[in-house]
């Protein structure tokens, strides 16, 4: 019998009521009195010297209030990078400046040059067309390997080259890894591309800057996954506004997927301009602008080698990756191909030696940063594709080859610096074989062949590192931030509870799931608990939502704060019942004296805390509010096994996904309905990457996929129903809820499953993502 409340139940989401009735409050729904509108004039060339920006005519256009250019930001800081990677020689990465508006040069199509502020949005757009630009176009570098050649045009003249860093991990393993390859019985090599993607949350980015002259306070309303982080970065590094004079609000946010983590120029601009003009300034991105200004994702070019002994045991892995940074370093960009990628190269397997080399490269393209999974999909894709290729080269069953090499003893210290606390990869593979009906595949293949279609089966595993992250560890690795989370549990006099969290919900259902945890601890009804998030004025410092960290880190902070509440409430209850607080138990919303029938209700205790007439004032303070900061001691390691079955029409190259199954181990589950939804969405995005999506630049740096007319987003008819299961549970050992996180798994596990299925159907060793009908048809003709 499923639970109907508390941990493990699936109550209907409370946030749905506003979203289903059109009463959500997204940033573009916010309009302030006296508001002005800004339109950004963006570069239409990938690389150029900015000789002159003449705004004379534009400034005289109707409704124009002021036009800003790079010169207006001469005394203002640039956009900071939040992670400094150290290269294999111990040197810090090359870190160029990133001005709010272009200064001297433009470096990608979409780089903002001027900002026109006007009374209406239309007036701002019209005036932007009257700005006269003198740009001397320079040769652009788009291809990463070409960008590293001697004499290549430099994206940043002040740097020595376009190489951001050359990272080796673990450098001490390199010689031994090379030796293992010399001694290998078999080596499988695969070169592949992890295609550049555009995150495309359905809500485009929006920023509204406001300034209060009477208090000298700035407020930024923005579409962010982490408003506190934006306050820190923008306040401390860009505009020089102290935290107590700067409020950042991220109200309902229409999806993020990583691209709304970062601090963007438009946010800093609207905050800055509102202070200058003493009026609110609003920017709403069009989708076309989003394609050329939201940070992109992935874009790795990799060579991976897998060494095996004569018994098909994995003995070593060696990779060489080129990772595109784009034209500037976005907030967390350097960490994605390194610490979020190299540390995952062990996957689910016992491979004693691993060496990962990553060259991060500047190009004249939009900056690249974290996108759902961030580094972990790239690691998983390489590993699970090369294992499949090895299985086919060796003529062994790909599932058997995986099973033979599974890690089975935990905790397990990988050769790439992380320690998996728990997992059971055999169990998830067993579960996958069951739910995907793998034993029925051959019959289904024959049925497809009878229709003239090709059918393929692809299976893979994944592991990810979530719940980021231990602050002291990431500090050693170059993070310029801590990665704890906070929670304040404010119990009100009548017993209702407001929980202020630094986590942000933009689709994950925190407002429903988090109260389930606290209700379980206190034995009270979930409806008495409300989650407050997305406003730096309301909650303590927080680090936001990404990396599947909200429950594992933010939820743990809530547990710790609630434990403090319980400890204090027990003292109050003990006083009210004239008992010892050591004898008080919490159950069903009451405080009981153990072994007696004496109890006092939750509401009586909370009322006493605020009306302390009969109260142990000599021992404890009135009130019932506690804050906790939780800093995890390790990452969490969700894992799973995925299977995809595709059918290919050999005449057209069209691929349909016939079955998709996912068996995940997320540790303990708070709300199974929401977890399944997260997996569905991740699979949808992973299928999008593998089948449809690809961000394409031409050789001159023109963005060819600049709208939904050219960039193929997955539609309902591109995907099937998915079979998902998360009944394999190995609880996380180091956080109080035993949870691991589920937000990114689907996007990590699904691309290799799809491509493994497609290569199986086609009888080829590789095909590039996205597997468009043209690519598939060419593969079938042997034209690849």
């Amino acid at each position: 019998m499923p639970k109907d409340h508390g941990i493990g139940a699936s109550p209907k989401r409370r946030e749905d009521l506003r979203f289903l009735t059109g009463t959500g409050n997204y940033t573009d729904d916010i309009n302030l009195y006296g508001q002005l509108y800004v339109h950004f004039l963006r570069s239409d060339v990938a690389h150029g010297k900015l000789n002159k920006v003449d705004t004379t005519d534009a400034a005289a256009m109707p409704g124009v209030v002021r036009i800003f250019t790079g010169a207006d930001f001469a005394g203002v800081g640039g956009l900071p990078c939040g992670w400094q990677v150290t290269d294999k020689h111990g040197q810090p990465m090359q870190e160029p400046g990133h001005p709010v508006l272009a200064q001297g040069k433009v470096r990608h199509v979409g780089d903002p040059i001027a900002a026109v502020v006007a009374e209406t949005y239309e007036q701002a757009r019209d005036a932007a067309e009257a700005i006269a630009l003198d740009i001397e176009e320079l040769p652009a570098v788009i291809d990463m390997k070409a960008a590293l050649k001697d004499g290549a045009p430099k994206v940043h003249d002040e740097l020595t080259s376009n190489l951001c860093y050359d990272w080796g991990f673990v450098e001490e393993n390199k010689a031994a890894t090379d030796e293992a390859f010399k001694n290998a019985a078999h080596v499988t090599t695969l070169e592949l591309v992890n295609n550049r993607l555009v995150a495309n949350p359905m809500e485009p980015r929006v920023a509204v800057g406001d300034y209060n002259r009477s208090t000298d306070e700035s407020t930024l309303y923005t579409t962010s996954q982490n408003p506190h982080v934006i306050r820190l970065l923008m306040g401390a590094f860009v505009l020089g506004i102290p935290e107590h004079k700067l409020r950042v609000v991220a109200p309902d946010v229409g999806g993020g997927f990583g691209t709304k983590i970062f601090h963007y120029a438009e946010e800093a601009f609207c905050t800055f301009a509102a202070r200058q003009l003493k009026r609110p300034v609003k920017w709403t991105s069009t989708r076309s602008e989003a394609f050329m200004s939201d940070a992109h994702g992935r874009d790795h070019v990799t060579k991976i080698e897998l060494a095996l002994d004569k018994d098909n045991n994995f003995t070593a892995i060696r990779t060489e990756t080129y990772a595109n940074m784009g034209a500037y370093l976005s907030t967390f960009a350097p960490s994605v191909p390194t610490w979020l990628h190299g540390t995952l190269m062990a996957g689910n397997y016992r491979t004693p030696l691993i060496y990962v080399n990553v060259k991060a490269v500047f190009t004249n393209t939009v900056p690249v940063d974290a996108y759902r999974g961030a580094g972990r999909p790239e690691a998983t894709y390489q590993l699970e594709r090369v294992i499949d290729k090895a299985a086919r080269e060796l003529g062994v069953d790909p599932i058997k080859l995986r099973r033979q090499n599974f890690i089975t003893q935990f905790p397990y210290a990988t050769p790439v610096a992380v320690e998996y606390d728990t997992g059971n990869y055999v169990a998830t593979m067993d579960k996958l074989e069951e739910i995907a009906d793998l034993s029925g595949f051959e019959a289904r293949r024959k049925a497809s062949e009878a229709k003239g279609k090709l059918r393929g089966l692809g299976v893979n595993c994944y592991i990810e590192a979530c719940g980021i992250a231990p602050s002291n560890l990431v500090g050693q690795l170059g993070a310029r931030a801590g990665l704890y989370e906070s929670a304040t549990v404010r119990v009100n006099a009548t017993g209702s509870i407001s929980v202020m969290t630094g986590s942000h919900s933009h689709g994950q259902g925190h407002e429903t799931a988090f109260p389930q945890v606290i209700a379980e601890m206190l034995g009270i009804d979930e409806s008495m608990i409300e989650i407050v998030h997305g406003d730096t004025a309301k909650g303590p410092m927080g680090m936001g939502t990404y990396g599947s960290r909200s429950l594992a880190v933010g939820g743990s902070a809530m547990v710790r704060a609630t434990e403090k509440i319980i400890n204090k409430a027990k003292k109050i209850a003990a006083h009210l019942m004239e008992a010892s607080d050591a004898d008080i138990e919490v159950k069903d919303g009451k405080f009981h004296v153990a072994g007696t029938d004496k109890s006092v209700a939750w509401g009586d205790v909370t009322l006493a805390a605020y009306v302390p007439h009969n109260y142990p004032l000599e021992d404890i303070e009135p009130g019932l509010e506690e804050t906790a900061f939780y800093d995890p001691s390790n990452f969490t390691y969700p894992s799973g096994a995925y299977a995809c079955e595709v059918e290919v029409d050999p005449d057209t190259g069209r691929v349909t996904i016939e079955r998709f199954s996912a068996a995940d181990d997320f540790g303990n589950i708070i709300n199974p309905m929401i977890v399944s939804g997260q997996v569905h969405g991740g699979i949808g995005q992973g299928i999008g990457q593998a089948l449809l999506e690809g961000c394409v630049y031409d050789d001159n740096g023109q963005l060819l996929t600049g709208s939904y007319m050219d960039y193929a987003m997955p539609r309902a008819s591109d995907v099937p129903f998915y079979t998902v299961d998360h009944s394999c549970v190995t609880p996380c050992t180091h956080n109080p809820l035993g949870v691991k996180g589920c937000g990114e798994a689907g996007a990590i596990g699904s691309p290799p499953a799809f491509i493994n299925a497609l290569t199986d159907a086609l009888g080829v060793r590789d095909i590039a993502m996205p597997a468009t009908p043209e690519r598939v048809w060419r593969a079938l003709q042997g034209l690849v």
Partner: protein
Amino acid sequence: MAQVSMTVNGKAASGDVEGRTLLVQFLRENLHLTGTHVGCDTSQCGACVVHVNGKAVKACTMLAAEADGAEVRTIEGMANADGSLSTVQQAFQDHHGLQCGFCTPGMVMSASALLAENPNPTEAEIRAYLEGNICRCTGYHNIVKAIMAAAGQDVSKIAAE
């Protein structure tokens, strides 16, 4: 500027608009009906779908002036008269057919229009009908399931949760 008048969610509405004003701008900016969203600029995403004279229309692809005299329904007008959720809205909540909520108004409007045209659609018909509505969160699984449930179909076998 031209004056337009229409009936929106059963109430008379009018305003002065420029010739280039889109219906979605009129709804959001003049009438403050912000439930209708703008997710793209190429008439692809469907976050702005409303009903005009009973048909699903992308409000970013119609001028406000073209809707003069029309009966318009938006997400704000979809609940039952007593304020309870309509069958489609309720099915979306019951089956977790939404996450961030941004595409949801358009999805509900399209789904309602589909069921008005075709009260018992197949899974394939639902997926095909949603061609003009993009969702980035759900992988469509629970959206399709919710629409099947709203049509009165048994969805218990589709997948757990």
